[in-house]
């Protein structure tokens, strides 16, 4: 099972991504609300992947990405971004981000980006059973 850390200053986005990742069979080991917390929690939990918002207070997603990858070259970090941030996304990719998710995040987008980052793994949404 893939251990993932979710980083976003928005409670709603963190919650949505967490729920989707759980449906895809991932284990959410940590949540961070800014880049500074992300760096700290990455060192503590050493997750297999991170979803990282770009625009956050205290320390941005790109600053956190650079810091994490300085110590861990294999870190799989997927940026979460809006349409207007293409230059920041390019900067993130140059600095080792494995992909990006455009807001609003959907389970389909999340599945595609995780399949690209981990081609050896299978990600399938587990549908909830409805009582008949």
């Amino acid at each position, binding site marked *: 099972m893939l251990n993932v850390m979710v980083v976003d*200053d*928005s*409670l*709603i*986005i963190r*919650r*949505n991504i967490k*729920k*989707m990742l759980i*449906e895809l069979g991932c284990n959410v080991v940590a949540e961070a609300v800014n880049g500074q917390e992300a760096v700290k929690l990455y060192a503590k939990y050493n997750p297999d992947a991170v979803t990282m918002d770009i*625009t956050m*207070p205290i320390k941005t997603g790109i600053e956190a990405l650079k810091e994490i990858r300085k110590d861990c070259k294999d870190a799989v970090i997927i940026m979460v*971004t*809006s*349409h*207007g*941030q*293409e230059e920041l996304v390019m900067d993130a990719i140059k600095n080792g981000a494995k992909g990006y998710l455009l*807001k*609003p995040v959907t*389970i389909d987008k999340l599945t595609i980006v995780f399949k690209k980052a981990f081609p050896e793994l299978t990600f399938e949404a587990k549908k*909830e059973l409805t009582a008949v």
Partner: protein
Amino acid sequence: MQMYEDVLGALIDRMESFVGEDMGIEILDKNICTKVCEFELLDCMTIIGLGGDLNALTVFSFDTFLIDKLVESFIYGEVSQEERAELSKEIPAEVANTVIGNAIPNFPNSGKGATITPPIIIEDAKLARKLKDSSVLMAMIKTKYGNAQCALLN
């Protein structure tokens, strides 16, 4: 002034596609870029500043029923009553943030040099009125669950 009308046009277009296409809520009407001296704020309101090459405040406000509907559409999976109440408070800010972020490429000069501040939620506000040389531009979308309005103040 034309620049700010273009900014507001980009914002309300993205608001329309966000609410209509991304959230699946039928849009009944759209009013764009009315210059006003004052306007009444809807129930749930958030402010985000535009900086860099722009210098303006955006004020997004929503009717409560529309926010309830947006919560249903925006929030993924099952949600408890307590969680719903907590998340409802953040929805206006989240919608405004997403709409602006997505609209920036359609700002004048493709949004190059535009920056945005984090959102601030304002509760119980009723009216905004222009003073001196300030300018207020307003746009609105109507849905069957209520209205969403976006104003640009500079």
